[in-house]
């Protein structure tokens, strides 16, 4: 499920996404079409022509939505229309009218005259198939009005292919399915999707020769999903090499922030544990909080996580009996006797003589740290990248915890050496969970490295200072590959363990989750070993694990707090 996002669109069409979604009966975005094009849709976005008046644009939205709602743009129907522009236009005229009539009760009043006008000159039809038959016949049909826009058969089919599973560019398409896109020569959208493939060197695939060649030629990779071009010039190769079909994306850090990082005295300084000397390196890492970019076009997952509600809502919500209350279910005998004694002794008695059984109020603040280093951009065995899976888990956790009334924050982190550990506050504690937060979350682009220790230290500092509840939980979503300049595996693992220990010492529960990553269990244990941690192959299985995991973490922290 995606959410309508159109923050950065021109004011005239901002907000139309909701109308379109309502009319089409599913999530649809609205955007402006290229200058010389009439209105059309690819099944996910409706493009309306910009020179038209608002009224005409609304009519265009209504027609395209009606087509979508009436099932006029189904794959089987469209297939018969490929490369038949004449038929397409005739089909649009007949089927557009049918779709509008079907949706008439819901359409705004101004569509009435358009429908009447069309009814007069266009033959009626009962189904997409009969519209198609009429379109193919010799029957005279008037040209559809401007507001009907057009049907872009190829774009629609291409979008359906993408939805059908061949989502990511690197994915292997079996021969049978490949037949389809190949016959469609005008398939622009699909070519865009496949574009990244050109950059994969034929030599050695994901092996060492490729690496060497690319290092030699200093190939500047194009970012898969946009981002600032040139910012991703390779500076260093990922330690883990290429898993699956690796496309390590490197830093997407913006130049100005890098400059900041090298400037003096910027950022918050944190120590780092040096395992080789068994001591802290004081003020070693500097952490910068950078506002995350919000990409208005990002598709946002919203209100998922029903499976998580049950375990999470029960965290720390036991019933407890409270004595000496002003009201309650039962009389507190001890209190009554005392009251009677006091009254007999002539003093003024306390009237609170009831026992009440109540639930604890929720008393939990949760800070989620999301790893957005380059290593999570790699695809996992299930197809979706580790980043996508971590992100959906983060969104679920955030939504559910926010709904059950906990204080929540989400920080994403990556780093470029110790002087530039970047933390992006996707949601701060004081912010409410709304479309902007989700938009920011879904606009994150993985890149660069992860200095996990510094991120945990900053996260726990924020949680300590801003959490505001007595129970605190730090959730780290990472693939466990902590690596940066001068942050080698053994050193990094020791530092992360140390940082987690510090957080626990301060009374915070720590949970480390690794979602869909194929990091070795041994590595994970070395890095997260001292905290509650779990590797979950598939976000859907989170519901069964999360309850005990969170509870264990909170209990560990609780005992620490009591000792302290």
């Amino acid at each position, binding site marked *: 499920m995606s959410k309508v996002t159109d923050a950065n669109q021109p004011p005239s069409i901002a907000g139309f996404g909701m109308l379109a979604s309502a009319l089409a009966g599913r999530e649809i975005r609205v955007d402006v079409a290229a200058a010389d094009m009439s209105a059309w849709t690819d099944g996910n976005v409706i493009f309306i022509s910009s020179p038209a008046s608002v009224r005409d644009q609304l009519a265009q939205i209504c027609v395209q939505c009606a087509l979508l709602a009436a099932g006029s743009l189904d794959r089987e129907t469209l297939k018969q229309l490929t490369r038949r522009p004449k038929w397409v236009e005739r089909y649009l005229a007949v089927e557009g009218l049918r779709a509008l009539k079907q949706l008439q009760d819901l359409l705004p009043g101004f569509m009435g005259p358009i429908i009447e006008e069309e009814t007069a000159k266009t033959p009626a039809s009962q189904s997409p198939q009969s519209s198609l038959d009429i379109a193919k016949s010799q029957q005279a049909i008037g040209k559809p009005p401007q507001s009907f826009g057009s049907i872009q058969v190829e774009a629609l089919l291409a979008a359906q292919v993408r939805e059908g599973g061949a989502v990511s560019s690197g994915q292997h398409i079996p021969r049978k399915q490949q037949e389809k896109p190949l016959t469609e020569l005008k398939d622009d959208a699909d070519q865009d999707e496949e574009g990244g493939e050109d950059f994969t060197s034929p030599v050695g695939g994901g092996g060492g020769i490729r690496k060497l060649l690319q290092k030699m030629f200093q190939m500047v990779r194009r970012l898969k999903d946009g981002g600032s071009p040139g910012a991703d010039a390779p500076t260093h190769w990922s330690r883990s090499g290429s898993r699956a079909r690796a496309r390590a994306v490197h830093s997407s850090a913006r130049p100005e922030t890098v400059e900041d990082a090298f400037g003096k005295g910027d950022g918050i300084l944190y120590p780092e544990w040096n395992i080789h000397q068994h001591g802290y390196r004081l003020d070693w890492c500097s952490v910068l909080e950078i506002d995350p970019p919000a990409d208005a076009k990002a598709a946002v997952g919203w209100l998922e996580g029903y499976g998580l509600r049950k375990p999470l809502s029960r965290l720390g919500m036991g019933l407890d009996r409270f004595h000496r209350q002003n009201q309650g*279910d039962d009389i507190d005998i001890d209190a009554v006797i005392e009251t009677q004694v006091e009254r007999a002794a002539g003093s003024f008695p306390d009237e609170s003589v009831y026992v009440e059984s109540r639930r604890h109020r929720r008393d939990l603040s949760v800070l989620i740290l999301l790893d957005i280093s380059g290593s999570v951009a790699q695809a996992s065995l299930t197809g979706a990248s580790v980043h996508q899976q971590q992100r959906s888990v983060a969104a679920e956790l955030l939504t559910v915890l926010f709904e059950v009334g906990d204080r929540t924050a989400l920080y994403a982190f990556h780093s470029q050496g110790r002087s530039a550990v970047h933390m992006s506050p996707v949601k701060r504690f004081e912010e409410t969970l709304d479309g902007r937060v989700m938009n920011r979350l879904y606009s994150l682009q993985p890149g660069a490295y992860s200095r996990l220790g510094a991120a945990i230290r900053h996260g726990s500092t924020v949680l300590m200072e801003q959490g505001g509840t007595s129970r605190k939980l730090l959730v780290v979503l990472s693939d466990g590959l902590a690596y940066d300049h001068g942050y080698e595996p053994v050193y990094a693992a020791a530092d992360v363990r140390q940082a987690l220990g510090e957080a626990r010492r301060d009374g915070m529960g720590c949970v480390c989750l690794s979602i869909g990553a194929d990091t070795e269990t041994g590595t994970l244990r070395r890095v997260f070993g001292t905290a509650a941690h779990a590797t979950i192959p598939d976000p859907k299985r989170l519901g069964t694990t999360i309850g005990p995991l969170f509870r264990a973490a909170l209990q560990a922290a609780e005992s620490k707090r009591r000792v302290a």
Partner: protein
Amino acid sequence: MNMTNSNIKQEYSQPYYVPVKNEKQVFKAAYKQGLSILLKGPTGCGKTRFVEAMANELGRPLITVSCHDDLTTADLVGRFLLKDGATEWVDGPLTRAVREGAICYLDEIVEARKDTTVVLHPLSDYRRQLPLERLGITLNAAPGFCLVVSYNPGYQSVLKDLKDSTRQRMVAIEFDYPAPDVEEKIVAHEAGIKLEQSKRLVQLAQAIRRLETGGLREVASTRVLIAAGQLVAEGLTLAEAAAAAIAGPLTDDAQVSNGLLKMIDVYIGS
């Protein structure tokens, strides 16, 4: 005391209710046979109004309890209070209904604690008894007593669900928003506005109800349409009333709210 959430509505000047399906017949049949009734349906679709109308038609007093998180068994059944150094038993709303043979309506039953709903079990099956543990007695329900509970399946249903043992003791009646032509009449009648005006409000609501999620947790109910209509009756324009009574309560999110306002503008703005 924690009893402010119950109130007796004895006199009621014929509540306005338009039957949608056979719900009146089902209710009456269940009532005559002494079965308990479960009303399911989204927020603001007329569940409470239906119970009021039925109580009125059957000529029984209606005792309504709105359930909430901290509703305990004692809140329903009753408790001892101290009065002048002695204890005194005070009946809760459920006990009162059992004694008087009233219709007891527990609104949003899932909100109540699990241990609370269990007290309903002997009352809602063939026994029709209410054990009062603290008094050591068991009350037999007076003739005319009927237990009606309501429940909104879409609403936090995973977080809190009705126990199967409770559900199976009930006869279920499902509700949904009325069909557009019926709803137009209801809104017009309840708010006291013209049918053309209520038509436009209903059309807007029909469109909003097609939004699957889009950041909305609940869609526009008949209740908010009536509220909008009431504002119109007071002289506000349709668009103003819809913005205040429909868009405002549904969301706090700026983007979603912008989308809703745009829809209001398209449907009833001009």
